[in-house]
């Protein structure tokens, strides 16, 4: 790291003006989770039944499918950010840290895609005989 010029002094110390982004996104998605997961719990408790047909017919309703998709995005975004912090704290080996963040991204994006796809399939095809 140089110390002659301004850029030389800050190089390698992290990105400029992006430091708060992770922190803010963690809070935005926390509020999203707060509202959407409470909605899911309340809905599950008040549904007439949790059998296959009741659940599929309920999710197929656009007013349920859309918030459910938003919930999946909010949950997996939030857990990706949170688990990243945990890994950064405990995985000290550089190579292992890279590999664990890679796996975390595969996990978060893969599961989020599976969740959104499942909701879409239920919404578009309904009850399967």
């Amino acid at each position, binding site marked *: 790291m140089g110390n002659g010029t301004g850029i030389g002094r800050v190089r390698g110390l992290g990105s400029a003006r992006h430091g708060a982004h992770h922190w803010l996104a963690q*809070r935005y998605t*926390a509020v999203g989770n*707060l509202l959407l*997961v*409470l909605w899911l*719990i309340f809905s599950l*408790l008040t549904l007439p039944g*949790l*059998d*296959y047909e009741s*659940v*599929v017919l309920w*999710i197929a309703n656009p007013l349920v499918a859309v918030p*459910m998709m938003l919930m*999946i995005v909010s*949950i*997996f975004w939030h*857990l990706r950010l*949170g*688990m990243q912090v*945990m890994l950064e704290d405990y995985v000290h080996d550089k190579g292992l840290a890279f590999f664990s963040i890679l796996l975390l991204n595969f996990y978060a994006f893969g*599961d989020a895609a*599976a*969740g959104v*796809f*499942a*909701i879409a*399939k*239920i919404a578009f095809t309904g009850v*399967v*005989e």
Partner: protein
Amino acid sequence: MARTNSRPLSPHLTIWKWGPAMAISILHRVTGNGLATVGALGLVWWLMAAAIGPEAYATFITCATSPFGYLVMIGITWAFFQHLFSGLRHFVLDMGAGYELRTNKSWSIAVVVASVLVTALVWLYIFGKAF
């Protein structure tokens, strides 16, 4: 940051005892990562089973309503409310409030009590409706 052994360390860093705020902080991380793995996978399994069809859904229900399944679901419920109330505490702390020792201690205890209480209420409601 590289730390050389020749530099002095603050002696107080190794002298501490358990306190509610510390327990809450650790529980926040533990419950968060529990929800991120067990909770998230359970949720996606439930949605995928419903998307695949009646047989896959029946398999999910059989696992979920086994004694172990109930144990996991009750655990997830507690972890969710613990993380939720602890998260609300973090929002207050983010605003720069609630750092006074007594206030911080009482809110930390309130978080644990609230999460256990709400979990109990939710499951009493579920079992009350089922049996």
